């Protein structure tokens, strides 16, 4: 093989350059799609602004676990945005790309699978990062102090984004047709968001115990510590989240298909 290759000077980019190349075009594609840009960035700002208008003047309360309303909502909405940028974007987007034949076209090039998925992951982490910065900024306007535990936030963000990306790819792998993807994604997500306390605090120990073993509540908790309580990394919840990420990754690796017409 090396003898055959000798005729053509290998000029392939190194791995990092390849991933950056992928991220660049994923970002271009993303920002030019008005739907994704608005859902990802206008929605959280509007939501935090509404919550600020409603509850901004209230002080700390036991209803919000000893936090102000905005201290409660800044991390949960941040978690929601990461979910949308990672799980939602990939579950729906990859199913559509497969159905359109875009994935098959990618598969026909020398771009390795890891390059494609690493590019997607980095793209989703960037979107999540932009979301968090935006939400923390808007929260500051309503009196939520800037967090101090940035390393813990970064770790939680990257781990959460990776886990929800893996779950998104897993769901895209299990959904056969792209039309069903948004419905299936929302069907799973919406009740779980409610039960996990994203929209309002849950005062049922039973529900808390159950959702504590599902992916969303641990992520909410893991973000609330460093964002609103100046706490460090929440290892117990991060471990639950990582376990879900691993399950997603296993399903994704075993079941992911590039071809719209399976054999």
């Amino acid at each position, binding site marked *: 093989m090396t003898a055959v290759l000798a*005729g053509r*000077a290998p000029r392939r980019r190194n791995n990092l350059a390849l991933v950056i190349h992928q991220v660049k075009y994923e970002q271009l594609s993303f920002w030019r799609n008005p739907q994704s840009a608005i859902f990802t960035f206008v929605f959280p700002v509007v939501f935090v602004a509404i919550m600020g208008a409603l509850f901004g003047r209230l002080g700390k309360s036991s209803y919000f676990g000893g936090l102000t309303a905005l201290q409660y909502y800044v991390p949960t909405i941040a978690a929601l945005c990461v979910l949308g940028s990672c799980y939602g974007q990939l579950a729906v987007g990859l199913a559509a790309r497969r159905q*359109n034949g875009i994935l098959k*076209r990618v598969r*026909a*090039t*020398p771009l390795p699978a890891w390059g494609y998925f690493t590019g997607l992951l980095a793209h989703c982490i960037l979107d999540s990062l932009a979301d968090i910065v935006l939400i923390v900024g808007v929260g500051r306007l309503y009196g939520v102090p800037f967090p101090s535990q940035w390393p813990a936030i970064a770790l939680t963000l990257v781990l959460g984004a990776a886990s929800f990306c893996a779950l998104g790819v897993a769901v895209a792998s299990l959904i056969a047709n792209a039309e069903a993807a948004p419905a299936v994604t929302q069907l799973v997500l919406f009740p779980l968001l409610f039960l996990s306390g994203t929209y309002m605090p849950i005062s049922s120990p039973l529900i808390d115990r159950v959702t504590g073993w599902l992916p969303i509540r641990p992520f909410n908790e893991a973000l609330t510590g460093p964002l609103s309580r100046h706490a460090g990394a929440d290892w117990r919840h991060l471990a639950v989240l990582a376990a879900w990420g691993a399950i997603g990754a296993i399903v994704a690796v075993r079941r992911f298909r590039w*071809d719209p017409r399976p054999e």
Partner: protein
Amino acid sequence: MHQDLTGGPAPVAAAPSGAAAAAGAGAQSGASTHSGAGAQSGASGLSGAAGAAVRNEAARAITVAGLCKSYGGVRAVRDVSFSVGQGEIVALLGPNGAGKTTTLEILEGFRARDGGQVRVLGLDPGDKSAARELRERTGLVLQDIAVEPYLTVRETIARQAGYYRAPRDVAAVISLAGLAGLERRRVRSLSGGQKRRLDLALGLIGDPELLYLDEPTTGFDPAARRGAWDLVRQLRTAGTTILLTTHDMAEAQALADRVVLLSDGTVVAEGPPAGLGGRGAEHARITFTLPAGVALADLPVPGTRREGSVVIETAQPTVDLHRLTSWAVQHDVALSGLTVDRPSLEDVYLRLTRDATPPIAPDRSPR
């Protein structure tokens, strides 16, 4: 738009010179790179029969022997064998459900085969470890248009170029595919024909030794189709091997060095388009209509009536045509609609595929 393809000569071999100013990466790609890969493999250290066999193998871009593939109980491809020489253009013909796309997808590495031998550029497309190398050296133009809607034409091609070891120059490929002037247009705003040409550009950007074209001109207007044919001929001149499928007999006739006709999962005929299915040896047909009052028996050569016309099938058309027209002039008989032809490729195609069972589910079934 179409002028870029039809009128403006944009020879493939010119890619290196055109590229030089724009990008170093593409500058040395182009026609010359094709010869290297095959020629160097196997030539050294081998002698005698083994060496000849290897060299012979190296001269073939694709060899398929006894290929089989079933979907459930349906045997989509059974015992298909053919080969494609380096630099050759071969057309895979056949009705829907004949096994063309299945065969193509096995060659492209998208599907696993049930049995048989397949070699593409000396590699086995069923071997996952060879996949990246194979994709590096082959280009694909698929039937379905599949591109990200929000990128521009240039971005789409530049993105794909970044996946290859030694891609062609982006600007050169844009003009080659007839997309000049559309570089900054979003893909979603392109017409169907323009998207097909973008597909073609994506197939060419990696500077492939072997190009698969799956119904490349479906949906093209006649001028765009001619332009695409010119492009294919330019690629042949540059040494690219091309395996194409088409339902357009004129396209196969115009482009292909050889035709492989599939029907019901098997090869029913193979050869140059002019001689397919014994077409070259078949009798010529003289066709015309006789005015009222002139009987078939009056003719100097025997003929038959078919759908209101008279048809004379002859092994010596020159002689028989001379006799016929001399007789007609002598007796002042007008032979209206007079034509001389041979069975067309389409006639042969229809005759050879007539007995094929129609596809069960044409929409989703593997073709």
